[in-house]
């Protein structure tokens, strides 16, 4: 589903105003100002792309939904990490009980070289927004 009108609008909105590079522009239709910069940032951090306008809308709805939390008065309330916060961490003895299973581990890897897992070259960061072919940039 490539509903791209929003995309075109986004890019149009970014380019229309030429006052300074890299200025954040709010995404329309959302009370929370989710800027294109933030969307791009999220895609890089999560290595998951929005794919289409639905994806962006989904995020906006999610944020809107979450905003209801601010109706609750939490003054003086401590955050709760887990219901086990009053329990203490189990300590294990320093014995070697695992490992030595190279074959089993490599069995599930699609690509391997000898006994290594293998990845493409380096950690070359994904191209910047202008160079990408993802939804946020497409037309």
């Amino acid at each position, binding site marked *: 589903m490539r509903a791209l009108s929003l995309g075109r609008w986004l890019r149009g909105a970014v380019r229309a105003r030429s006052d300074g590079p890299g200025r954040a522009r709010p995404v329309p239709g959302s009370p929370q100002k989710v800027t294109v910069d933030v969307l791009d940032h999220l895609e890089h951090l999560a290595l998951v792309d929005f794919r289409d306008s639905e994806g962006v809308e989904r995020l906006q709805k999610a944020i809107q939904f979450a905003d209801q939390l601010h109706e609750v008065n939490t003054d003086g309330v401590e955050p709760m990490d887990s219901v086990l916060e009053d329990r203490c961490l189990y300590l294990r003895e320093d014995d070697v009980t695992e*490992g030595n299973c190279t074959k089993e581990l490599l069995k599930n890897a699609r690509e391997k070289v000898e006994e290594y897992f293998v990845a493409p070259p380096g950690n070359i960061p994904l191209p910047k927004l202008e160079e990408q072919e993802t939804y946020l940039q497409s037309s």
Partner: protein
Amino acid sequence: MVAAVRGCGGVWRRVWQCGAGGSASLGQCAAASSARGAVAPAGKSGLAPWVPVVGLEIHAQISSNSKLFSGSQVQFAAPPNSVVSFFDASLPGTLPVINRRCVEAAVMTGLALNCSINKRSLFDRKHYFYADLPAGYQITQQRVPIAVNGTLSYSLCTDHKMSQMVTKTVRIKQIQLEQDSGKSLHDDSRSQTLVDLNRAGVGLMEVVMEPDMCCGKEAAAAVRELQLILQTLGSSHAVMAEGQLRVDANVSVHHPGEPYGVRTEVKNINSLRFLAKAVDYEIQRQIEELENGGTILNETRAFDSKLGCTVPMRDKEGKQDYRFMPEPNLPPLILYDTKSLPANINHQQVVNIDRIHERLPDLPSVKRAKLVEQYGILPEHSFTLLNEDGLTEFFESVVKRTQMKPKKVIGWILNDLLSYLNQHSLTVKESPVNSSMLADLLNLLEKKEISSTAAKQVLGELWKGEGKTPLEIVKEKKLELIQDQEALEQICQAVIDGQKNEVMAIKAGNHKVLNKLIGLVQRKTQGRSNPVLVKQLLEKKLLD
């Protein structure tokens, strides 16, 4: 470095010193030294001086059998992916289980660094993607680490002669437990990266040192002291060459009285020497950049040891947000002391801070103080003894076997033995001269059977490692001191007779010239005369 050329290999424009002598000082040493009127990094003609600020993040691999959260082995240079558990490989559904030994190591280290140990500490996830981080996050302690607010005292020499030592202190912000990552080996020729997870999950203690240091020398000295402490405790082997101790340096510069400058982080430093170089280079680079009107980017740089300079790291471009989140699979880590220990608790589940404190071995600073007290050596001597692996044991062993006073023995250890070892890049263990040999030699000297010149000669022979004892060499080379007093008297007389001018000078009151006569007697006897005795004889003849 000329501003226009980005690169290294030029002569530094300014040489600045830090840490001018005196007592312990906290905070920027440059400020302290300028207060004393000593040299602070001077700017270009007329510009305000610069205050360099250096903080360190040190990762020390914990010495344990198994990893921090899994039961796979901690083993250096094992065959690829052979000491990796399902959890280390981040197989879905696997969970972390903490290793008690790692907790104890962190507590030991915290106590040794005068930290407050947090009886309740928490674990967090730090997220980023990298080939050697299978889970996409590292488990660390960001909110409440296991130890905080400590101090580390270290010393450095203010000159090359090791004659003036200054004690400094650096604050320890915190110590946290965290996982090490795997290793990626970049194979550019085949356009691939090989990933070995053997190291993934090994326990690390990250020691954060506040920016109380001001130059490479201080940084290196602080790290060296930490290394000694860790090795003494046994909590980490801390061998930098094996990656068991890694240092990241945070460097910035500012003018006195102004706020701190933008800092850069220098990573990939795997030796003390490189640490000092990298820090000093970076300080200089920043000063030059700023003086030329440029700005410093808050970036991560790597140290290129071949070129001797820091370069920006490509891999870490782009905004980073680690999205810290509490680690939900690890309830709080609870530590006890004797007071808080509940009655009916399973002792296998207890880490008792007081017990660990009681069992702490003597730290390097204590060991040094004891050496100074016990043997009457100087503090700087004790530093050198501890700094060299095995040297203290060697020294003490020699002292035990010889009548020579330790104060004198130390000279032989530091000036002769150590310089020889350094020249030939040998460790104490590899020394061809062992402690009993040296002791025998020093005994000969002490008993006045040989002169000190002769002793040095014998030592030279012993280095050859031909298996001869000192006594054998003395006999072989005929280095015994002349014991016959009459014969010696005759030789003295002969020298006196041959140096009329010098004799006159001596009789006139210039006693220094006596040394020349002593030297001549030495030569005549081929070094086999006791200079003290010779002096006595000459004085008797000339001054009575």
